[in-house]
């Protein structure tokens, strides 16, 4: 069978530096002394913690439940005791903390009861839920929850399922080794995806600099009697980008505004297929992954590491050389420097590169852009990076959007070729996050405006209603003529102001004459009656979104114990404080 290959424009060919780490087979990393498992390890909602400090957990026990459909569960990587559920520095370029579960392993590595299932007997919906609860996410680096990608579009027939084994970033070899050593499970996982999506063809794309992996995958496909096409694609960064690989294998171009299923194609990483298979057929959730440890280390190789292993403990396995001055997570094109040696390895960590001044020499100073257009030639999405740069630098974000900044996949090709050594990607990320922030502000302003206008409307209505009520009351008590309805606002003020003043000792400015006092008492009485009516009914709870209602419910829940304890004013127990922190 001859597969026609397509080309994508742009791309670069940096030194691959892959041979260093493929010499040794995958090794299982020893149990670390402590595991730090961030709860937010996928795109989408942050899972809620399901364990409390002091609790004993088993290997594979769910410690964070998926929050919504686009979210994915998190599990204890080994058995042990939960030391804390708190904010710890995240493997994120910001170096900011994220809510994590800290587990002290007990060394017994005791599994939960694993229940392998025959997925063919189950409804596809159930399988997707299983995958979500097993924490299966895209392991290529994007960590998008896989179950959410496993539904075909209702209108477009699913034509191709693309399996991404290209691994185009320099230095990274974890998928290569996985395909070499565990090809059959990968292929079975692909079979699982195929059964869920029912595409016409399955194409497994592997860059042609990995002949061993191609051979192993071909053998496995044959051994399992599948009809998947294993295709060697030309080595050119970023051929392993999902959109680029889809383009190369199928000729389809997925625009930024569309999902690939709308074009009848879907793409998964080989490691994702592997973990999906382990989850379904062996009942093992995603608690470990294969990570390449390479760069400036004495022993570069691939390790199967538990999620949550701190960076420092992991890199010690490779014996970093003396002049190592930092660690990159991911490849040298798109990766970032780990903010701290305490930051844990997560599902997105495919590679750790020890850096040194000789390996990544400091950059020559940035020069002005001369608009030479090299970046436009290298851009795989055919953007005009120099124009984007020009406007991003001037903070003209509207223009950057006109030049399709959100089509940028931040692959780094433009920065790689730039003769002026401009950190282009950095400018684009800056512009993107500014635009997002603005979007958030705009949404907040719109909500605020809508609520403000609604409130004004309601105030007017209430005022009208109150006036009507008072008029009626006045008519009924026609005898007491002098009790003219007082204006609503001061009455309310007086009614509540008095007890408040008595309570809190605030200055009660009440130099009222007898007439006013009388009026105030009447108003207060009316107010009291109204309050009694409304006492149990919280205000302003109409027109809330479910999220807001949830927030309110949380607040009420928090308030209940407080209210009970208020007379004593005792400090809430420590667990409560922790709980509170989590809720925020």
């Amino acid at each position: 069978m001859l597969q026609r290959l397509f080309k994508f424009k742009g791309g670069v060919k940096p030194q691959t530096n892959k041979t260093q780490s493929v010499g040794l087979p995958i090794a299982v990393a020893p149990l670390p002394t402590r595991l730090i498992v961030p709860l937010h390890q996928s795109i989408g909602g942050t899972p809620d913690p399901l364990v409390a400090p002091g609790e004993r957990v088993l290997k594979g026990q769910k410690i964070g439940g998926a929050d919504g459909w686009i979210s994915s569960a998190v599990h204890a990587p080994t058995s042990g005791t939960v030391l804390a559920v708190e904010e710890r520095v995240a493997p994120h370029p910001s170096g900011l903390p994220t809510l994590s579960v800290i587990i002290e392993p007990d060394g017994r590595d005791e599994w939960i009861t694993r229940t392998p299932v025959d997925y063919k007997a189950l409804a596809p919906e159930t399988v997707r839920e299983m995958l979500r609860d097993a924490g299966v996410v895209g392991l290529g680096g994007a960590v998008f929850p896989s179950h959410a990608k496993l539904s075909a579009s209702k209108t477009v027939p699913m034509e191709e399922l693309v399996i991404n084994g290209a691994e185009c970033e320099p230095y990274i070899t974890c998928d290569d080794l996985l395909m070499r050593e565990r090809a059959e499970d990968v292929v079975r996982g692909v079979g699982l995806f195929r059964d869920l999506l029912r595409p016409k063809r399955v194409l497994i794309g592997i860059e042609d600099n990995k002949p061993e992996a191609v051979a192993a995958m071909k053998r496995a496909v044959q051994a399992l009697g599948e009809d998947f096409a294993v295709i060697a694609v030309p080595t050119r960064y970023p051929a392993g980008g999902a959109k680029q690989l889809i383009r190369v294998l199928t000729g389809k171009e997925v625009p930024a505004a569309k999902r690939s299923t709308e074009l009848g194609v879907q793409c998964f990483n080989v490691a994702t297929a592997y973990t999906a298979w382990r989850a379904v057929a062996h009942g093992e959730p995603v608690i470990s992954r294969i990570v390449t440890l390479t760069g400036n280390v004495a022993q570069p190789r691939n390790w199967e590491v538990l999620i949550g292993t701190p960076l420092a403990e992991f890199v010690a396995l490779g014996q970093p050389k003396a002049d190592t001055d930092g660690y990159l997570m991911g490849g040298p094109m798109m990766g970032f420097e780990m903010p701290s040696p305490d930051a844990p390895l997560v599902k997105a960590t495919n590679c750790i590169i020890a850096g040194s001044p000789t390996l990544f020499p400091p950059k020559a100073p940035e020069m002005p852009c001369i608009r030479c257009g090299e970046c436009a030639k290298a851009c795989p999405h055919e953007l005009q990076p120099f124009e984007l740069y020009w406007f991003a630098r001037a903070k003209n974000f509207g223009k950057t959007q006109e030049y399709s900044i959100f089509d940028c996949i931040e692959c780094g090709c433009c920065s790689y070729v730039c003769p002026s050594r401009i950190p282009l990607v950095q400018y684009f990320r800056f512009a993107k996050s500014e635009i997002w922030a603005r979007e958030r502000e705009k949404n907040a302003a719109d909500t605020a405006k809508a609520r403000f206008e609604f409130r004004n409307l309601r105030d007017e209505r209430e005022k009208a209603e109150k006036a009507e009520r008072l008029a009626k009351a006045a008519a009924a008590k026609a005898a007491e003529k002098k009790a003219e309805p007082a204006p609503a606002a001061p009455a309310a003020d007086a009614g509540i102001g008095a007890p408040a003043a008595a309570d809190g000792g605030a200055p009660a400015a009440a130099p009222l004459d007898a007439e006013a006092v009388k009026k105030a008492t009447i108003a207060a009485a009316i107010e009291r009656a109204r309050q009694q009516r409304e006492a149990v009914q919280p205000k302003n709870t109409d027109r809330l979104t479910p999220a807001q209602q949830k927030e309110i419910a949380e607040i009420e829940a928090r308030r209940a114990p407080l209210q009970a304890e208020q007379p004593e004013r005792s400090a809430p127990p420590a667990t409560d404080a922790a709980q509170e922190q989590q809720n925020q």
Partner: protein
Amino acid sequence: MMDFTTPPYLLKTASVQRVMLQVLAALLPGIAAYIWLIGPIVLVQLAIATLAALAAEAAMLKLRDKPLGLFLGDGSAVVTAWLIALTFPPLAPWWLLVVGVLFAIVVAKHLYGGLGQNPFNPAMIAFAVCIVSFPALMSQWPALGLKTSFGEQIDIVFGLAARVDAMTGATPLDAIKTALKLGEGAVDVPALLANQDIFGNFAGRGWEWVAAGYLIGGLWLWKRGIVSWHAPLGFIGGITLLAGALWLWNPAQFAGPLFHLFSGGAMLGAFFIVTDPVSGCTTPKGKFVFGFAAGLLAYVIRVFGGYPDGVAFAVLLVNICVPLIDMYTQPPIFGMKNEK
């Protein structure tokens, strides 16, 4: 410490300086032919321009508080200086060159923020400013076949000897234009050209060899990938189209495309001026449109307008249109090709 903020951590070894050096190298064949035609005074002019450019650049960098070493070494000022020296008449007084260079570097380049930010081609600004301000000096080209020694040339350039009208004369382009304007259509261009011709066959007086030198350098640049084919081809196409049409219509009155391509600043313009990435268009289609429009305008101005050559004005006029051309020639991006 590694550079935390700026992935990718791998970079190709390319630099602005290298680009500029290659442009300078590509000018050498043309310069060699020019020296053969005019004499070593060309080198003196190049040196004057270079020195003035570097001094102006250094002063501006100093004023703007930018690192001297980094920017002086980038070579962009030298490229501008050489282009100015090669477009000005070779016997122009030294101060004329200096004025042009100063205007180019200070006003056209640094007031806009220096390297990479200037919307106009600095060298062409220099030419336009000088030809508007000193039309006589800028139109005096070495006279036909009159051999002057290097010493005499030096004396003229540095104002030690009086400018002798006999030593300077009109270029072939000028001659044709003058004849055209005076003769009211009754000129015989082929005869005129035949009379003018000393070394060359089609563009007069050996200027064609200089142009051929630029052509060779330009092709080399194209082969190196420094310039794309779009702008030069557009420029040559623009001139050829208009010149060819008029020549076919009335060969007695209008010179042919070959003459126009190999005279004046056409070849220099095609490969070294309309290809300037900073002030030119950047999209492939835009580059072609840019070159084509510049070619048409250059022809119109040099044949019908009031100045001896139209390349400088044509380039400046199209420079004005660059943002709009770029805007309307944006290539479709990945995934959007069928959505037009």
